[in-house]
């Protein structure tokens, strides 16, 4: 449903539902800690992000005329699911019995490297996000930094018809982006 929902917000809500569902399953499995995180991050944070993004980008009703015929897609997936399932089923027979350590010790000690690498994820991720979103003010910055006359800039950027014209005007920091304060030249 999350996929077929026509409105983006509804889709995002469905995703939150899925996350919550997964979290419940995880909890039942005995993975309490991760369940909590999944609930808060997956169902909470990510949904907020989605809502945020949708509110920036705006709702967009696309006619759902698919590229790929529906039947083909479904058929492919049935085949795929079937194959994996057939290879998968004898799952219960195994059971390596280990007395296991606490989650905290495994997470923070045994898999310390993974945790350290999460820092890399977060750092690079943030930089990437900033990078993707930040530059729309770039043309205005050029104008401020160097006193190139308008006439010289416009031809250069005018060749690119995708850049919306208003952007070329010096803009006030937009309220929609929390990181914008960082970007504004002092």
């Amino acid at each position: 449903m999350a996929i077929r929902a026509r409105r983006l917000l509804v889709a995002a809500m469905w995703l939150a539902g899925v996350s919550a569902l997964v979290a419940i399953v995880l909890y039942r499995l005995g993975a309490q800690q991760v369940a909590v995180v999944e609930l808060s991050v997956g169902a909470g944070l990510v949904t907020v992000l989605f809502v945020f993004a949708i509110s920036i980008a705006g709702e967009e009703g696309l006619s759902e005329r698919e590229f790929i015929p529906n039947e083909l897609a479904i058929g492919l997936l049935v085949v795929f699911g079937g194959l994996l399932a057939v290879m998968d089923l004898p799952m219960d027979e195994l059971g390596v019995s280990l007395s296991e350590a606490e989650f905290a010790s495994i997470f923070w000690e045994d898999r310390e490297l993974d945790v350290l690498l999460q820092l890399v994820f977060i750092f690079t991720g943030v930089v990437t996000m900033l990078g993707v979103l930040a530059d729309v003010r770039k043309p205005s910055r050029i104008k401020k930094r160097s006193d190139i006359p308008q006439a010289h800039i416009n031809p250069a950027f005018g060749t690119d018809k995708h850049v919306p014209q208003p952007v070329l005007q010096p803009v006030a920091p937009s309220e929609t982006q929390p990181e914008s304060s960082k970007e504004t030249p002092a």
Partner: protein
Amino acid sequence: MSTLTILAGGALALFAVGLYGLLITRNMIKVVVALQILVKAALLALVVAGKASDQINLGQSLAMTVIVADTVVAVIGLALAVQVKRVLGTMDLTELSKLRG
């Protein structure tokens, strides 16, 4: 059929739903939604696998890392979507299939 088998099947089904979404959707935001579902399925599978080998906490630890990575990718995906909207004025993937051949 034990619970674990059913759960594994569930993870697979969720995975399939995610892939299905990627196959049919034309909206950038929904692409990110589908990716999220895909990773959720993998996450579930990891924990189930941990459970199956009696190392639920190991599974949890892995899942934790996956959640972080997954969230970061989601953020990047959404940022890209927003940027696409800004530049192209739409989030339709048909507008994003100009590079071909």
